């Protein structure tokens, strides 16, 4: 294989911009073409990012461009056939999340890629955001001790571009997913949990409801569940997962409770703080602990400022890391950034959650 990967992308919707901009930053890959069934969408992406070719025919793109890697950014219902097409053409695949409509289809997809000896990754970019990378380092150094419990909170902004698109049309593909809004987003909540919860089939309790927001559409949008709570219990580690569309400000954080410390990750401010408890007695200890926490946060913010000055504080930091790691795994036969086992574990957990909340919002 040459030292530069030939890359193409299919599905010129909202997330495609992030993929294209990050691929084009790499010096070991060249984005050759984009494809969408709608020619206007394919052309606009190609024009805005100066991509040499654009197609409406997926097979034609694969045949003409002979890519090494295909980024699949279409709605999840189309992932399986598109993955099969890419793998049959000898390509590795980066598939946007959710991987497929359910666990069974996800398993079929993963098996298909593995049997062909190709590589697969999924768009779990939040697993590679700077706070998680820092957590991995802290855990490796024993700062956390043994993990006992995890809290993962994912706030979703329905007023954002994608939220507006979902509410703007009853025909949006999210409404056709078995887990609807949750299925498209709770990977960000769950992969903070599976990071340190190793169980294959943990015990799960889930509840969901529609808290409020826009209604009176007279269609599927009126039934769109927007609040989800999940309790997960593994052999040694338990977890709470919260997905909320109504809490303001929109926050995303996780807390890891260990036998040595509690580690707080904030994915909005990208800060990491380790709480080791008071080391001094009585009121002095409580006072000192407050200053200690503040200093740790200030230190984390200062490290972010340094990253900014080094031009290393991009919006798509996790996506950039994931793409780079995936390409490295292809070029240097290194480990995959997201293990297939973890992809399938999350798919199974999601199925379990959706089975429990089925009908809760309609």
């Amino acid at each position, binding site marked *: 294989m040459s030292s530069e990967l030939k890359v193409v992308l299919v599905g*010129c919707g909202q997330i495609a911009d992030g993929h294209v901009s990050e691929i084009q930053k790499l010096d070991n890959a060249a984005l050759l073409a984009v494809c969408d069934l*709608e020619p*206007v969408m394919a052309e*606009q992406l190609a024009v805005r990012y100066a991509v040499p070719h654009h197609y409406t025919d997926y097979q034609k793109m694969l045949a003409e461009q002979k890519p090494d890697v295909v980024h699949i950014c279409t709605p999840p219902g189309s992932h399986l056939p598109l993955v099969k097409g890419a793998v049959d053409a000898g390509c590795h695949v980066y598939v946007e999340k959710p991987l497929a409509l359910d666990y069974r289809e996800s398993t079929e997809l993963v098996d298909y890629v593995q049997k062909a000896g190709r590589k697969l990754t999924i768009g779990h970019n939040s697993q590679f955001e700077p706070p998680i990378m820092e957590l991995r380092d802290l855990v490796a150094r024993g700062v956390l001790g043994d993990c006992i419990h995890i809290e993962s909170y994912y706030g979703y902004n329905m007023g954002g*571009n994608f939220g507006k698109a979902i509410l*703007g049309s009853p025909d949006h593909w999210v409404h056709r997913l078995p887990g609807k809004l949750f299925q498209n987003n709770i990977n960000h909540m769950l992969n903070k949990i599976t990071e340190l919860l190793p169980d294959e089939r943990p015990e799960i309790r889930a509840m969901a409801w529609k808290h409020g927001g826009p209604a009176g*559409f007279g269609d599927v949008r009126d039934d769109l569940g927007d609040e989800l709570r999940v309790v997960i219990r593994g052999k040694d580690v338990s977890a709470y997962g919260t997905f909320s569309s109504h809490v303001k400000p929109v926050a995303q954080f996780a807390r890891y409770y260990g036998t040595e410390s509690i580690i707080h990750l904030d994915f909005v401010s990208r800060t990491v703080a380790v709480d080791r408890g008071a080391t001094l007695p009585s009121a002095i200890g409580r006072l000192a602990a407050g200053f200690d926490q503040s200093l740790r946060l200030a230190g984390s913010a200062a490290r972010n400022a340094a990253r900014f000055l080094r031009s290393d504080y*991009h919006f798509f930091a996790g996506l950039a890391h994931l793409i780079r790691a995936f390409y490295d795994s292809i070029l240097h036969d290194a480990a995959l950034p997201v293990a297939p086992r973890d992809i399938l574990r999350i798919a199974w957990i999601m199925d379990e959650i959706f089975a429990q909340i089925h009908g809760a919002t309609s």
Partner: protein
Amino acid sequence: MKILVTGSNGFLGSAVVKRLLEGGERGIRCLVRPGSNRRKLDVLDAEYPGGIEFLTGTLNKPADCEGAIDGVDLVYHLAAAMGGAPAEMFAGTAVATKNLLEAMAASDRTIKLVHCSSFAVYGVAQLGRRGMVDENTPIEPRPDKRDLYSHTKYVQEDLVWQYHRKSGIPMVILRPGVIYGPGGPPMSARVGLNLFGIFLHLGRKNALPLTYVDNCADALVCAAENCRFEGEVYNVVDDDLIGARAFLDRYRKSVKKIPYVSVPYLATHLMSLAVEKYHTYSNGQLPAIFTRYKSASIWKGNRFDNSRLKSIGWRPRVSTEEGLRRHFEHLKSEATQ
């Protein structure tokens, strides 16, 4: 004559429907997206019983487009996405228009099209300062270097030309400048931008291509009544245009005394250069909100001509003075609510 109005519950769309109702049209088909706010149209429907035929659907579905044009003789196409992610904007403006044009081209009826385009399609960055913008001004050669709205409107108009040429759809294009009035955007970016809580007044003495919403609606209807639908193009700006500075002064006097920093064009140009350089240096860590090309397109300053529109009988019903009074009065009442 059966009329379809797309974007009918929008700022300009509802003004066009009102203008048509005032002119005696009835049974105007208004395409509204499922679940969208149609309050403005409901008010008009109550005022003119039988005046509006509501049709729920979206131009993003080809089948809805076919239903929308069924039995129609004339389409006022005003639908466009005003914001959102790039893909959403292209889908809402360009793909939606393509679907509509496909349906019109496939129809066995001859359906005329009044297309609402925008000044944004002109390649004004290449013009000198104070250069005249009229219908002969070249079309934007680099739409990808402009803002998303301009790019989507460029692609949208290009599609209209393509279908006019290949499918013979009779059409006329109106290119309004800055549409203003009660219920519309408070202030054009041509006046300036709010950046981190500071209002940068970038437009200064530049003339604003204002058109009061009712005058713009008149222009669309006037074109439909008086042109031959052979691909004519008309710019829409009112008379007695004022400058960006005068607009800001009146806004501050009538609505809210916002603090601002006045930025000369040379400084805007240099700031844009710095932003571009940093964007490149940092690999896009901060978005290139300002670029020299965008700044030249928006803040270099032009003059505007409406004589071609006047040649077919259009006259601004509402003077700029009166339009601004209404606009600011509405903003003031909103601010005090």
